[in-house]
């Protein structure tokens, strides 16, 4: 069991708290205990159901919170030495694309329908720290080769509407890596894509990580996907990170929610018996109880679980959990 290398993280999120502005009143807190770190060359999976806050964290990472009427209320996001929380739009313009790439959920939303692929790639390439215009065409072709698009000459002339969903997503990835960022945030990049296409895209992300050394944050609700492709997993529930561990370690979870998620995976279900579901639902945003928010549905809940602030992540050997009594879990299994 090797200990994690003590290198400075590329992205460091600490105690991030995000709220949505409400007309006349306190902001509605949607995330309040987000903690995780991304190291160079790592693929990190940020897993959570809808409502867990993962999308908000994603937006905070790429600086689009303001557009949704949300803002960071507390905590820090550091990209290397840069403080992203304090960053204004000018700094974000420098950061986005160049240091932090983004692959959105729907490539249709990310690509301009009236510009050719070639033009859009050229735009992305021009964002490089040292743009070299004469080389742009060659770079474009090279990018298309990296994302495994055959017949690049044809595709460069086409418009997004003429391509399949899978190909569009590959173009999005090409645009994201064009400026050469160290980090890419991929927000559910394979939703809505066929399984084979999904596998291709995920494989591509893995290849990019291997070839270019880009670190990737994959936001997803699909545990199986994260399990298969990521190195490190961070589980979110009701606005807080509840567990953070490597993929191999997360197989022996130390938080009851992760364990419940694991058990309820459809892939693991036995045909002929009921699917295991997690009873109840996460507490609604705005109605978070004190203490741990999984307490209501937890099998090993103790009296101190319902008191005070939501527990933070505390780690043993690179496996951090927000559960106050992880040792009780073995007994319950």
């Amino acid at each position, binding site marked *: 069991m090797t200990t994690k290398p003590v290198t400075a993280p590329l992205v460091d999120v600490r105690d991030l708290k995000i709220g949505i502005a409400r007309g006349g009143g306190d902001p509605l807190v949607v995330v309040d205990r987000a903690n995780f770190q991304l190291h160079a060359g790592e693929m990190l999976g940020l897993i959570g*159901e*809808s409502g867990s806050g993962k999308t908000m964290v994603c937006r905070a990472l790429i600086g689009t919170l303001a557009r949704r009427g949300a803002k960071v209320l507390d905590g820090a996001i550091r990209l290397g030495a840069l403080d992203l929380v304090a960053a204004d739009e000018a700094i974000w313009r420098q950061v986005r694309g160049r240091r932090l790439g983004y692959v959105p959920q729907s490539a249709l939303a990310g690509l301009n329908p009236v510009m050719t692929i070639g033009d859009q790639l050229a735009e992305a390439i021009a964002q490089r720290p040292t743009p070299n215009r004469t080389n742009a065409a060659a770079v474009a072709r090279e990018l298309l080769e990296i994302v495994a*698009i*055959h017949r690049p000459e044809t595709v460069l002339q086409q418009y997004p509407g003429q391509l*399949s*969903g*899978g*190909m569009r997503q*590959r173009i999005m990835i090409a645009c994201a890596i064009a400026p050469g960022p160290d980090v890419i945030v991929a927000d559910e990049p394979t939703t809505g894509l*066929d*399984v*084979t*296409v*999904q*596998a*291709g895209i*995920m*494989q591509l992300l893995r290849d990019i990580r291997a070839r270019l050394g880009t670190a990737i944050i994959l936001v997803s*609700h*699909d*545990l*199986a*996907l994260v*399990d*298969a*492709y990521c190195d490190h997993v961070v589980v979110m529930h009701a606005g807080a990170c509840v567990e953070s561990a490597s993929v191999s370690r997360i197989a022996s979870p130390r938080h009851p929610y992760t364990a419940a998620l694991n058990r*309820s*995976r*459809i*892939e693991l*279900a036995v*045909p002929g018996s*009921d*699917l*295991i*579901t*997690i009873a109840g*639902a996460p507490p609604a945003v705005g109605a978070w109880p004190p203490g741990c928010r999984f307490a209501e549905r937890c099998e090993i809940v103790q009296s101190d679980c319902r008191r005070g602030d939501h527990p933070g992540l505390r780690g043993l050997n690179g496996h951090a959990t927000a559960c106050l009594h992880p040792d009780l879990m073995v007994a319950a299994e």
Partner: protein
Amino acid sequence: MTDTLLAASDLRLTFGSGAHRVAALRGVSLTLGTAEAIGIVGESGSGKSTLARILVGLQLPDAGTVLFRDRSIYAGRQTYPGALRREVQMVFQDPYGSLNPRMTALAAVAEACRFHDSCSAAEAQARSLELLARMGIGEADSHKKPRQLSGGQRQRVSVARALSARPSILVADEPTSAIDQSAQAQLLNLFRGLLGQGLSIILISHDLAVIRYLTRRVYVMRDGEFVEAGATASVFEAPQHPYTQALIASIPGHQPRIQEPTP
């Protein structure tokens, strides 16, 4: 062996005309027994939704037959005439469009109950509330309009509405694609329960895990035809056709490196 409830034979359908003809179905045949769940798995563009619409009677094929209990479902240009209509119902993929936005969940289900049972408004309401409760929609939620319900809840209301017709067959076209994982599990458990009560289900999905869990037999569809068919367990464990193999291989975790089809 179960009796054959539904038998489709050599279904063909072409869309468009002239240079823009697209063959959506190229000769598709399947059977469905009582209290059986079969799966139709395929990717987008395979024609599975078109097949679903034909089986349910929303679309007429260019050629081929569909027999329900050994009787053709076609009478002229009409499908499932008369009393047959209620026998085959559908749950749609998009929970947002499948409920009338101006009717509460209760109203939508009660309308169906009242229509099929010819009972009083009060009886219909009582039966609807009970049906919705069985689907996990409580009384308070039953009085809500669709926009106040989650995707999973909307799907369950759709199922309740479909069930009020007391059908023999439920065709579910990608019922879990647009909803949460926990909502998916709830819906699938619901389907399993209904199977146990004698309902037959045709489950159309691109999600192999869901197909594997719920269905006993599966048809693998590609480009308007079935490339493989058989017991779900065998098809998953030992796929014969290269396309099926590619599908199975692309399930996350099945194989670290896969050959993806050329785009």
